[in-house]
């Protein structure tokens, strides 16, 4: 019963990349919509630059706060080396969202940072990938921005709104493919 009504999202990356912040934002957006929401993560030793994952589950009723292995609908990976260790979490028709989605053909992540034609860069990967994710989920752009603004200091709002919009545009292209 759960499987049909609960959406499972796993965020993965390294300590310090904003993995937990990204999951906070999604949980906030789902909570404000009125869903039952659970979010699970590990603090402490694992955050000293090591692998970090955070699970967000929402729907009519969520039991376990942890996404069962192989039942992840969306896996957002903020660091390429963390894709393979987490791929088994994804269900067979689940969607993998990675930093490379943001790149133009032939571009590298370092070149993305230097690209002045886009607000996207490696420091705001978390919000950019949420932009990509947003096209797959039933929340409006303003619901997303409310969730982002609630989790970031005011001085970062304008920049992150631009980053989110650019990520969303990438998501629309990705979804069509």
């Amino acid at each position, binding site marked *: *019963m*759960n499987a049909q009504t609960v959406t499972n999202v796993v965020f993965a990356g*390294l*300590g310090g990349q904003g993995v937990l912040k990204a999951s906070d934002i999604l*949980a*906030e957006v789902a*909570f404000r919509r009125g869903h*039952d*929401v*659970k*979010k*699970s*993560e*590990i*603090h*402490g*030793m*694992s*955050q*000293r*630059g*090591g*692998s970090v994952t955070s699970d967000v589950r929402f729907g009519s009723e969520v*039991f*376990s*706060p*942890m996404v*069962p*292995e*192989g039942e992840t609908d969306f896996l957002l990976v903020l660091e390429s*080396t*963390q894709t*393979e*260790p*987490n791929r*088994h979490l994804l269900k067979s028709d689940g969607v993998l969202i990675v930093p490379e989605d943001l790149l133009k053909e032939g571009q590298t992540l370092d070149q993305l940072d230097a690209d002045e034609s886009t607000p996207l860069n490696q420091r705001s990967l978390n919000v950019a990938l949420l932009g990509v994710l947003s096209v797959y989920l039933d929340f409006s752009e303003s619901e997303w921005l409310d969730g982002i603004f609630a989790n970031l*200091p005011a*001085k970062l709002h304008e920049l992150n709104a631009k980053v989110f919009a650019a990520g969303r545009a990438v998501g629309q292209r990705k979804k069509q493919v």
Partner: protein
Amino acid sequence: MVDSGRKLLSGNEAVALAAYDAGVGLGTAYPGTPSTEIMENLAALGGPAQWSPNEKVAYEVALGASWSGARVLAAMKHVGVNVAADPLFTSTYTGVIGGFILISADDPGLASSQNEQDNRRYAVAAGIPMLEPSNSQEAYDFVFEAFRISERWSIPVMLRMTTRVCHSMTIVEPRPNIDPPKPRHFDHDIKGRTMIPGYARPAHRRLRAKLAEIDAWNEESTLHKRIDGDRSLGIITSGICYVHAREAAPTASFLKLAMTYPLPIKRIRAFVESVDRAIVIEENDPYLVDSLRAAGMKVEGKPEMYRFNELNVVRVRRILAGDVSPEPTRPPGKPPQLCVGCPHRTVLSTLRRCDAIIMGDIGCYTLAVLPPVEAMDSCVCMGASIGTGLGLRHTLPPEEARRVVSVIGDSTFVHSGITGLVDMVYNPPPTGHIVLILDNGTTAMTGLQDHPGTGVTLRKKPTGRVVFEDLARSIGIKNVHVVDPVESVSGFKKLIEDSMASDELTLIITRRPCNLALKKQQKQAGEARS
């Protein structure tokens, strides 16, 4: 957080909010994953929260405050309860006045701990009633229940949480549900609280009588949840295991226990008799299943392989299916490591180059055990670096003994290192000894908390500061050095070599701030300006 209505809170935030809403008079804790955020959040709410030097002191201060009539909360991780066990075991004899809650935050799966001990055993051993919340709403609600039980029977109550309850965020509807605390006053109760054998013998009988009353109350308690589903499978569970099991077996019957010590044996027996197959789903030790079997119930437990590591939906499905095939091994993630530029790296790699035998301790520097530094020979518990180092120094052949050093962080030193240092003065090994306090000015591993060595309180107010070098000299250690290990690595290495060659007692304080703490300070200063 919004001021009213539903909130999305971690279990730790929910406990802090409930304690605040219950008018808690004092909260005490030593930081330790997964419990740390409880006291941080109580302080953030404006509640009376303080860091203690260790869990024993936290427990004792809370006990004294309770005798004034104040409601109190002492929060600690599972191994912290070991440190607080001494007052815990006798506080159930003396009893309390204001409601007393002990938070035991257990860590099944060892996300950030040195062992996987199951503190439900403590409830039995100390005779302290135990409640186990399964989500943040229950964490919130059970705080009020615990205060009520504590005040009704004048007994401390343990709220046993686990990592996934502490750190998972779930929805909470705040609903304060308790009378305001009584005015504070001290009434003498000499025979009740002064535990000489003649007064402790009747106190033990009083404790057992209280537990019998609580047992009877618990049999009728509405806190337990029974779901009469499919009779072919009945699951007895508590805490986080309940939500995993509900998902793994959505149509099964459930008896989800709230107070798991004393156990409501009659209620459980009635449930077991109502189903065809009764199985206990619990993490770590077979506490529930052994208790039910001892009471003569025919219940299934989990295969031994599931004793290790935390449970989750997939593992519960396997337990229900009796699947004991090996679990799939997964590619390892990236292990945590010392930050680039961390002063601990320099200190530990220098000790390695000096061919030291390194008795380590609990903190970020424990990560030096991993490649590429690999400079730590032991890590047992808070403060053990000094005791184990002294033991080796006393018994190894002299040439080997000289290479032994004890390495301990500043917060850990305050917690449990001072008595070790006193032993070094009292029982000096023939070759002397070297203790290094790695003083980065913060409790870094648990997220940069202050402690008595920083001179700043939990609420960020300046306060008295324990100066390690003054302390060491005052107890009779002559060779006390304060060095910046990064400024002169060669000078630091020579100091180690010279100290190893001497037969004297040496304390070296390597003082250099944690880079993360510096960054945090700069960020806060920046935000204060903007």
